[in-house]
């Protein structure tokens, strides 16, 4: 097939716009989509040109048939996000709140109430949150690391930061038990808010009710896809994975 991209800046521009929209996707997904869409557009142009349409008109027709690049990119990104919603977000939030933040938040007043440990306390809070944020960013490529970090530091750090601020005020600093109680209550509020946000996302994705069966149903298929995509699947391996 003729390489039309060199001679058609409109196609180039269209794919560049699309590329920006799907930039948060994992590189392999993004590159595959770009190649696939380019091939499709080129095929339309080639077919139209064969029928006698002038090349410039053929390109215009192809782009019209494809629709707005931003809308298409946004839809592709949303489709990718939907794949992540019921699995990674759920796992990440549960892990985040129940395994990491609660102990950190509960431990914070003890650590920082001793003045010589204050620096270590702050380092601990920021360090653990940064690691969890990085982990979330990896698990959540479609959101982008910046979004995850903003979320992490703006929302999840609110409670420990408030505790630190409270401890800086002499009356609270002297009564760390009061601070402990406040932090515990705020932690619960934090968890409740996060779970509400999680439920909202799940309901918006239309998967809240069907989540457990949906996930169970997808497990063998995902395994099958994974093996097929890597191109090293034997029939036996696939069968075993599907059975699992």
């Amino acid at each position, binding site marked *: 097939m003729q390489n039309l991209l060199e001679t058609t800046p409109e196609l180039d521009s269209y794919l560049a716009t699309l590329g920006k929209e799907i930039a948060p996707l994992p590189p392999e997904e993004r590159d595959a*989509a770009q190649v696939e869409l380019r091939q499709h557009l080129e095929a339309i142009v080639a077919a139209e040109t064969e029928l006698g349409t002038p090349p410039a008109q053929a390109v215009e027709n192809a782009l019209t048939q494809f*629709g707005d690049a931003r809308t298409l990119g946004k839809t592709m990104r949303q*489709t990718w996000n939907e794949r992540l919603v019921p699995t990674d977000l759920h796992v990440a939030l549960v892990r985040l709140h129940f395994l990491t933040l609660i102990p950190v938040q509960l431990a914070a007043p003890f650590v920082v109430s001793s003045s010589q440990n204050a620096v270590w306390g702050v380092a601990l809070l920021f360090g653990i949150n940064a690691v969890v944020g990085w982990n979330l960013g990896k698990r959540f490529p479609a959101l982008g690391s910046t979004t995850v970090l903003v979320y992490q530091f703006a929302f999840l750090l609110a409670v420990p930061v408030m505790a630190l601020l409270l401890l800086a005020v002499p009356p609270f600093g002297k009564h760390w038990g009061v601070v402990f109680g406040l932090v515990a209550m705020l932690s619960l509020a934090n968890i409740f808010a996060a779970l509400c946000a999680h439920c909202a996302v799940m309901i918006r994705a239309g998967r809240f009710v069907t989540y457990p069966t949906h996930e169970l149903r997808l497990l063998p298929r995902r395994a099958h896809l994974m093996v097929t995509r890597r*191109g090293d699947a034997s029939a036996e391996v696939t069968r075993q994975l599907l059975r699992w």
Partner: protein
Amino acid sequence: MPATDDQLKKGNTPTLILAVLEGEPLHGYAIARAIETLSADALRLNEGALYPALRSLEQNGFVVSVWEPQPTGAARRVYTLTDAGRAELQDKKAQWQRFADAVNRVLNAPKPTLAGGNYVAEPA
């Protein structure tokens, strides 16, 4: 194209894709052409919309894709219907049939008349 037609097509794009893949594995461009041809040009999709639909079908395990080398030119991503996709297609066909039957019954039924605030079907 009226908005209703667009909505109908958008809502049924995944089913149409599954239907054309029932015959043989196809790449995106061929899927669009197959839908056009099989519908006698009545269904001309927004071709960009095919790809989010294909991704969604793939994520749900209804189709799988592989990059297949072509005799001429670069490899192309070809989509194949899975067993789960075949089952989904049968479900969708049954759903569509029930929906079409219900609409037809309404369209072709003797029309009701308003009598004393209540709709009463005219005798056949």
